């Protein structure tokens, strides 16, 4: 079982059990040894009393059911009295404690000489062991009774402490898939709270992403309607004319329509990719090196439109991201610049270093934009009033999202003499 509660219970129970067994063992040994010491003391006391009383009342020190035997001899060696018929002569020549065999019974023996008389006190070893064991077991009993109580207390404490976690789990299990409300974490132990707070932050980010996605799908479905409506009409009117020239023109229009729809789907895909990637990876990009590719890409379209294309790069150092990111940014800006350029106009792209990174500017000679429209054109599908071009309204939204992800800034400016628009992008250096 991998549950925290189960593991806590098991390990605590094992620990308590081991400690209890060890301490019980130690206690048992100690108590039984002490009991034997006490019995030895008792034998010494009995010896002293037996000597003092032996003249008065022989055998008076012995209880009826006592297992301790006592015998006293006078200084001449004559037996004064003995509590046992089997002990008539001294069992030990020396004094002090020893073990002797009387008949078939082993005895613990204490011998001493007091006032010239020889005293011996004997007790069967088996009896001594029994008494020591009884004492030790009596000392262990409360400890053994407390063990289950302790185990129960441990289980209850753990259960109480983990109740909040269990309730949290139940709350998580009950949640809707797309619920965005944070999980309650006020009642949780301090150790678990950071985890739940992190999960809550993750939930918030996820619900934000899901909402962005839903909006995007709605926007995309709406944006696809216009090109689809055009395609439907272009197909419907294709057969309407019998004039071969007119029919060829209608077919050409249909091709344009298909191209527009596929361009829109590409742009939607590109925007979706940029918006959904949380972190852009790349080894860094040299803006100057991408200019050659851009020139090859855009020279044909520019010369077909009669527009002069001038790309100049004087930047140094690598910016964050990858060359394809730079190309995506620049090509969207160049698309726009060419779209709004007149025949005979000029489109310039300049890349150079600013203090924080590489600055890319695209200058066109188009109509520019009203000042209050400048920030709004970054919105998805936004079209400036009066703009009748075939742009999808996604290019700048894509560029803005990409630039933001690369840690850069983008802004649009009308040229001072209103002779066109400047798109300015600043991208930070790699590692900055």
């Amino acid at each position, binding site marked *: 079982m991998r549950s925290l509660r189960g593991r806590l219970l098991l390990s605590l129970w094992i620990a308590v059990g081991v400690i209890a067994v060890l301490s019980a063992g130690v206690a048992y040994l100690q108590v039984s040894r002490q009991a034997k010491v006490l019995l030895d003391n008792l034998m010494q006391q009995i010896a002293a009393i037996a000597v003092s009383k032996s003249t008065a009342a022989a055998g008076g020190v012995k209880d009826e059911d006592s297992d301790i035997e006592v015998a006293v001899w006078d200084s001449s060696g004559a037996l004064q009295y003995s509590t046992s018929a089997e002990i008539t002569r001294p069992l030990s020549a020396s004094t002090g404690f020893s073990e002797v065999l009387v008949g078939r019974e082993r005895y613990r023996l204490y011998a001493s000489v007091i006032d010239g008389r020889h005293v011996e006190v004997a007790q069967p070893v088996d009896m001594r062991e029994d008494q020591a064991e009884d004492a030790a077991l009596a000392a262990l009993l409360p400890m053994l009774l407390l063990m289950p109580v302790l185990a129960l207390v441990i289980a209850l404490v753990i259960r109480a402490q983990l109740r909040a976690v269990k309730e949290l789990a139940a709350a998580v299990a009950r949640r809707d898939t797309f619920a965005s409300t944070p999980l309650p974490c006020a009642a949780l132990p301090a150790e678990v709270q950071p985890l739940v707070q992190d999960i809550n932050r993750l939930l918030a980010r996820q619900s934000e992403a899901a909402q962005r996605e839903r909006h995007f799908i709605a926007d995309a479905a709406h944006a696809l309607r216009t090109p689809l409506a055009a395609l439907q*009409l272009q197909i419907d*009117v294709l057969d309407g004319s019998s004039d071969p020239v007119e029919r060829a023109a209608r077919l050409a229009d249909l091709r344009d329509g298909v191209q527009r729809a596929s361009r829109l789907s590409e742009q939607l895909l590109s925007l979706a990719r940029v918006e959904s990637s949380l972190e852009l990876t790349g080894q860094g990009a040299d803006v100057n090196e991408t200019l050659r590719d851009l020139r090859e890409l855009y020279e044909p379209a520019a010369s077909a439109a009669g527009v002069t294309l001038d790309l100049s790069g004087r930047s140094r150092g690598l910016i964050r991201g990858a060359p394809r990111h730079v190309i995506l940014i620049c090509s969207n800006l160049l698309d726009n610049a060419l779209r709004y350029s007149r025949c005979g106009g000029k489109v310039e792209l300049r890349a150079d270093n600013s203090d924080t990174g590489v600055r890319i500017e695209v200058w066109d000679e188009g109509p520019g934009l009203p000042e209050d429209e400048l920030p709004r054109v970054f919105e998805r599908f936004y079209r400036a009033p*009066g703009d*009748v071009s*075939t742009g999808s309204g996604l290019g700048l939204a894509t560029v803005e999202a990409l630039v933001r992800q690369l840690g850069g800034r983008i802004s649009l400016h009308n040229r001072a003499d209103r002779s066109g628009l400047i798109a300015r992008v600043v991208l930070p250096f790699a590692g900055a």
Partner: protein
Amino acid sequence: MRILIVEDDFMIGSSLVRGLKDEGYSVDWLRDGAQADAALRDPANEFQLLLLDLGLPSTTGIEVLRGLRRGGNNIPVLILTARDGLADRVEGLDQGADDFLVKPFEFAELKARIRALARRHVGRLEPQLKTTFLTLDAASRSVTREGRNIRLTAREYALLHALMQRPGTILSRAQLENKIYGWMDTVESNAVEFLLHTLRQKIGSEQIENVRGVGWRVVTGK
């Protein structure tokens, strides 16, 4: 019949113009709400139907429609829009639109709705226009005389359609020109007379009567 299209998308607009001209309508196309507003106020333009896109730059379609109805113009209006939300449809109809078509749509449906609106506008229930001898079926764009099919060019058809809208009503040359030519069409001074001549040859010259100095009308017949 003369139709004004207000649609900012170039591809949709140009295809609509082509398709409706194929059908014999005279068509004008504007891409901007403010221009449409001005064109609709000009009494020289006698439009019989307005195809209106809602998502226009500057002045929106709804604003054009509101201005139109406030000015007392009761021209049939068919809204074309990519917005299919209930609120959009309800607002369009409440502001005075006669019908609503959500993009993308099939051209055949648009044509049918245009015919239905035109019919309803002149208070006619039958889909065909009739005189004693002639029958004009707008749906199939066919003309028959006493059961016999007559083949007409788009312009001849448009001319006959204009005259048969209200059989017996006299229409002047200017009125006829207005109904069958758009702004972009170059109209020669005797174009209407030439068309009348070829039309009369096909349907029988006695079917169209010239009222000297006033204009022409189709004969209702007896």
